[in-house]
């Protein structure tokens, strides 16, 4: 188990060096996105882009996100925020359950060229395949560690779709320093989650024989 400090933009080489069990500290610019944001990324931005039907505002946001997310990271998180003058302060910022985003994530990873997804609970086989193809990793932050991660958020740079989606679901662009996480899915087709799932199924079978 190795330990790495990674800063966005992350190179393909850096991402492919990561192995399940490695610990990382993540720095640089992240974009939060959960249920409503993933749906918007795929069904509005990506589909609108290919059919040429994006509004001017959506096109501008699409281009901004293309830049931020290329070699970048998405964070599955619905924060608690507080107004700080004209900007915002992140008060509590732990990860949300990633598996809800499985239907969208593989496309998002390849379309935007992500080097990683940050969340909790792990994701499924299709995301694992997308990580392998793209050269990216799944970074597991300890669920509920919201006060700890909030302290690593240095600056809130922008928020998108807050009025439409609400505070938890909006896309927050933040600069972070040294967010601690564990690699639980890597670009070599390995997932700690499937391993634990298999072992616990076998353990259950033993217990049910008693």
């Amino acid at each position, binding site marked *: *188990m190795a330990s790495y400090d990674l800063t966005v933009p992350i190179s393909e080489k850096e991402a492919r060096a990561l192995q399940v*069990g490695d*610990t990382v500290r993540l720095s640089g610019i992240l974009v939060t996105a959960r249920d*409503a944001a993933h749906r918007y990324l795929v069904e509005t931005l990506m589909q609108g882009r290919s059919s040429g039907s994006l509004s001017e505002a959506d096109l501008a946001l699409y281009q901004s996100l293309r830049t931020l997310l290329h070699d970048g990271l998405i964070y599955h*998180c*619905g*924060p*608690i*925020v*507080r107004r700080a003058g004209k900007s915002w302060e992140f*008060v*509590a*910022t*732990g990860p*949300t*359950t990633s*598996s809800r985003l499985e239907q969208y994530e593989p496309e998002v990873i390849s379309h935007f060229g992500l080097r990683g997804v940050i969340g*909790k*609970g*792990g994701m499924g086989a299709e995301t694992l395949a997308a990580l392998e193809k793209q050269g990216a990793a799944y970074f*597991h932050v*300890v*669920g*509920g*560690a*919201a*006060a*700890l991660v*909030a*302290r690593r958020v240095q600056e809130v740079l922008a928020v998108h779709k807050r009025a*439409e*989606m*609400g*505070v*938890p*679901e909006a896309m927050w662009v933040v600069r972070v320093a040294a967010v*601690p996480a*564990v690699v*639980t899915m890597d670009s070599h087709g390995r997932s*700690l*989650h499937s*391993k*634990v*799932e298999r*072992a*616990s*199924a076998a*353990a*259950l079978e033993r*217990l*049910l024989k008693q």
Partner: protein
Amino acid sequence: MKSLVDSLVELIRRASTDLPADVEAALQAALGREEPGSVAAGAIETILENVGLARADSTPICQDTGTPVFYVSYPAGQNTIELRRQIEAAVAQATKKALLRPNAVDTLTGRNTGNGLGLGLPVVYFEERAGDQLEVSLLLKGGGSENVGAQYALPSAALSAGRDLDGVRRVVLDGVRRAQGRGCAPAVLGIAIGGDRATGRAHAARQLLRGLDEASSVQELAELEGRLLAECNQLGIGPMGFGGKTTVLGVRIGLLHRHPASYFVTIAYMCWACRRARMSVRRGKVTFTG
């Protein structure tokens, strides 16, 4: 009655920002069991550090401050319409103060109300009581953990689970195995045996108000609580599903009578951030406990 609203905001602050002592002690004990330097131990260390930071800064332990569930027992004659209004005012204020996340989303439009109030939110249970004391218990029930809760109708052929306590044991183990780490293990399990689908769910969640040191007063249930705690921790799911010896911190079982045709076992799965707090008001004097 502005002061009752203020006290309710304080109740919310305590629940959201400070973990009950028994839960924190169980996490400390879990750290001692996990392999030093393991990913599991690292996760519990992070959890404990986070709990300390949240307490010091008086900020929420977790950004998902959950569904607020209020259990109010009030002296005969107290106006519950007014009490509900005060609870709603407290939730809106606590949301404004960033002690709660705005967690009320319109299910049709997807719009967030922004103040934590909505159809059926917050959840409030009223119960009249003897005496002149008002008691309010608050549970902040996380959304991710709620998603992995389960309800089984016994018998279950697939799990060879009959309508007895061994059947209960089998389905609970299956429920915890299915949840993996997704509900933010290590969990506290509130379990109801009996009732219908709705009362069983409500009674299961109510068990989460009991301390980890408050075993059932029914001996068979107390034994099952202990056995399930030990066996859940043999599943190897571990903190956050990273693998390890601590999947569950405590199991609390409650009982309801049932319809002859039904035998429900309901699991209210609570993340490690088992946030509960209680206050009582007697002759204008407010006391916070737990």
